């Protein structure tokens, strides 16, 4: 299979991936970089478990062909905590407010929320719900996820 060499910024670091051109960003993150926080919950862009941030926008990495990532900037859940391990306020809020249960959707949920808070530091409940509309969760009923994002927004201010 034809391989491509794709250079981009991953969690603030310049990286190059040599992977088959048919790979998605999700597969590249999981298989090439061994960053398995983003999950393949459906593989067709319906569930949001694979959400990462590309150039400030939350995207389904399972739908993103790797050639499209050339020169872009990608942030994943693994890059969110500080180098000393200090949790990002979103991560902290999800733990404090029970925004996480089984945790499978959590990486995507937090990245969608981060993309929102980066653009709108003071979102309404409706804006939060819209931002995570594409992130499915079976455990929580979303209530405490929304509350977690609200809590993080306050903390970040």
């Amino acid at each position: 299979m034809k391989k491509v060499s794709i250079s981009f910024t991953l969690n603030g670091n310049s990286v190059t991936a040599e992977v088959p051109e048919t790979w998605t960003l999700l597969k590249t993150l999981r298989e090439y970089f061994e960053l398995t926080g983003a999950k393949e919950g459906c593989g067709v862009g319906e569930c949001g478990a694979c959400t990462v941030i590309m150039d400030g926008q939350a995207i389904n990495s399972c739908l993103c062909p790797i050639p499209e990532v050339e020169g872009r900037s990608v942030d994943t859940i693994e890059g969110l905590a500080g180098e000393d391990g200090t949790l990002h306020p979103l991560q902290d809020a999800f733990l404090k407010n029970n925004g996480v249960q089984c945790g499978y959707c959590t990486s995507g949920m937090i990245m969608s929320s981060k993309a929102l808070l980066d653009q709108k530091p003071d979102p309404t409940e409706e804006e939060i719900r819209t931002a995570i509309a594409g992130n499915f969760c079976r455990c929580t009923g979303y209530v405490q996820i929304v509350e977690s994002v609200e809590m993080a927004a306050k903390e970040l201010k």
Partner: protein
Amino acid sequence: MPDNLFVGKSIPRTIEADKVTGKAVYIDDLKRPGMLYGKILYSSHAHARIKSIDTSRAERLEGVRAVLTGRDIPDVRVGFLKDQTVLKRDVVRQYRDEVAAVAAIDPDIAAEAVRLIKVEYEQLPAVFDPYEAMKEGVPLVHEVDARGRPLKSNILPLPWKFKAGDIDQAREDSAFISKDRVSTTWVNQCCMGTSGCIAEFDQNNNLTLYDQTNVIFGHIGRITEYFEQIGLRGKKIRVVNPVVGGSFGTKLDTDIYEFIAIQLALKTRKPVKILFDREEEFFALPPRQPTVFTIEQGCDREGRLLFRHCEAVLDNGAYTSWGATTPSVMIMPMSSLYRVPNVYFKATCVYTNNIYAQAMRGYGNPQATFAVETSMDSLAEAAGIDPAEFRLINRNRPGDHTPMNLKITSCGLEECITAVKEKLDWDEKREEGRGVGMASLIHVAGGARVTKSDGHGIMIKLDEYGHVDVIESGTDQGQGSPTVISQIVAEALGVRPEDIFLTFGDTALALWDAGTHASRHTFMAGNAAIGACAKAKRQILEMAVEQIPKIIKRDFKRKKRKDPGFVEPDLDFTLIANPEDLDIRDRMIFPKKDPDHPYFKIPLTQVLRNGLHVGIGQSKVVVAEEFYDPPTEMLNWEMKGNLSMTYAFGTSGVEVEVDKETGEVKILKLVSAHDVGKAMNPTLLLGQIYGAAYTGVGYGLTEEIKVRNGRVMNPNFRDYQMLTAMDVVPIEPVIVEPMDEDGPFGAKGVGEPGLVPTAPAIANAVYNAIGVRITDLPITPEKVLKALKEKG
């Protein structure tokens, strides 16, 4: 008794920080050296004879390491009624029948190889409607039973029947009677993490199964039985949980893909992973099954229930898993939700060529409660009594013994119904198109003796730094147990939650457990933990009695060396003469009679270190285990018995607005009131209630696996309508805490109850709003419009 330091507090889920940083390792993320990827070829027909299978092209594909069909492995029957084989040799009976399987070096090659397998079928007549399937002369799904004896009917040999009292007399005595027919459909558990496992054999053919299951020890029994028939008798099986991405009942049984992974691993001598994609999760995983109920109830003039008579028909699909045993749980609400002296319940499970069924959160209770609570509203109306009042008249009370012999200990049902009434302004007059409805529940909340042992084990060991390892025999499937168990252990042992390190889901390390199901984990693990902590604490305090005087004397010696003028105080060592004189709290050991004693109050770690590093051949470690098996009863042949130590009660109340133009049902408010015994961690408890209620709303309004002629038509999230964050349901939780005397710190199980009464509460609210009753779930706009039209 001092206040609890940790139990009852909203301790954050810090112990699960890996889940918010991407570090948690799910089955998706787990790799073993040399691991191959398995993929399954499913049937192309609902019922057909396999004429030939050509695997030659698949075998030649580069990267393929094994191709298996039913002819390549022993023809061994598996499953609850032993009515299927792992790979089907001659006949397929449903679209999800496993016909062949491949192991390859990567998932894409495995998928390609599966596409290259050619199967020739001869179609057979099929039957899809359970009522049709019960008639004479219809196609038989199975020609013979597990022992090869010919079968004459599609009805399963599982005669679920419950009888108490005298129905005929009660019917005669009734002043009011109502009759209803209600039905529920297939719904998928929708775990966000799809099913998967890795099967790996060592050189001696002992198996390690890394598996997304919530009943780790259940696998061992079933796989051992399988091993005995395939020449692996006596081999050791170890089941290990990775982080489990939700369960909701899906993983109670050993599924066929798990046996296939085992066969592929045997064949290739390599670890083999099978991971379902979302489409497979929808069509090849047994969901909650459809049930049709005909229910009749009667009451006297005062509104007291006199009888309940109900017959159920379950579409079993082509094979039998735990879905066919859900009637055993249905008997609980049928016989014991509200006081009803005369009860008859019969459930018939029928083979069809549809997909077969499994457990899902609530295990038959949501279906049965939909029937009972629909009927409660009908009968209240017939009797001219307000539905809330009618329920209060018939409510369960502490001390009741129900017709099923359930012994009700604590019961907060009255408080739950009353709270719902208040929070919904029940008696308020509402505008056209708006209405309120309620429904209640009973569920096991103190274990469930569905197998002969309902045991649960915990092991606890402390190291000399005060770290507490807890080897838990259950599964963490997201319910919050790591936090709650660490709260319990910290409280009972006298340390802090952050001192606790939990190991879940490893059969090689843990004592036995009946499974993390039936809302039993906090109750069982909590009681086991309290028992283990008491033993560990005793060991520590015995150590303390020996060590504290030595520590103090050594300390005095040191002080004297430093300061020759130091005068040893006159200490009363009788304060710490016996283990009973001491206690531990917040990492400190102290004499009970003088908790702040300036010398005898000593850090736990100091005692542990001194106890281990004695230096004279008497060193000690602290380790304790407790296997808790409550004094409950299996159901007898009459389906009676007190199978749980305690029971959960609760009431859902809903206010809806129905749009008569579009048929849409909008939930304006959902009050979810639950008797939880004691809220161990209020924030986590709310998460259970919210999540379960939300799934219940989906059950009531949107969710349905559409099965047409045996085929799943909507195997994806676009067409299967699970609720999203945009489906705002304003939920108001109400926590009732009667403190259960048998529960750990008073707690009862809470995992499933939130789901159970939600759908019937919605249905009752819709009726209240528009005067038409939708009796088949889900209540879609199409059904509402149709019903409105028929009403005229």
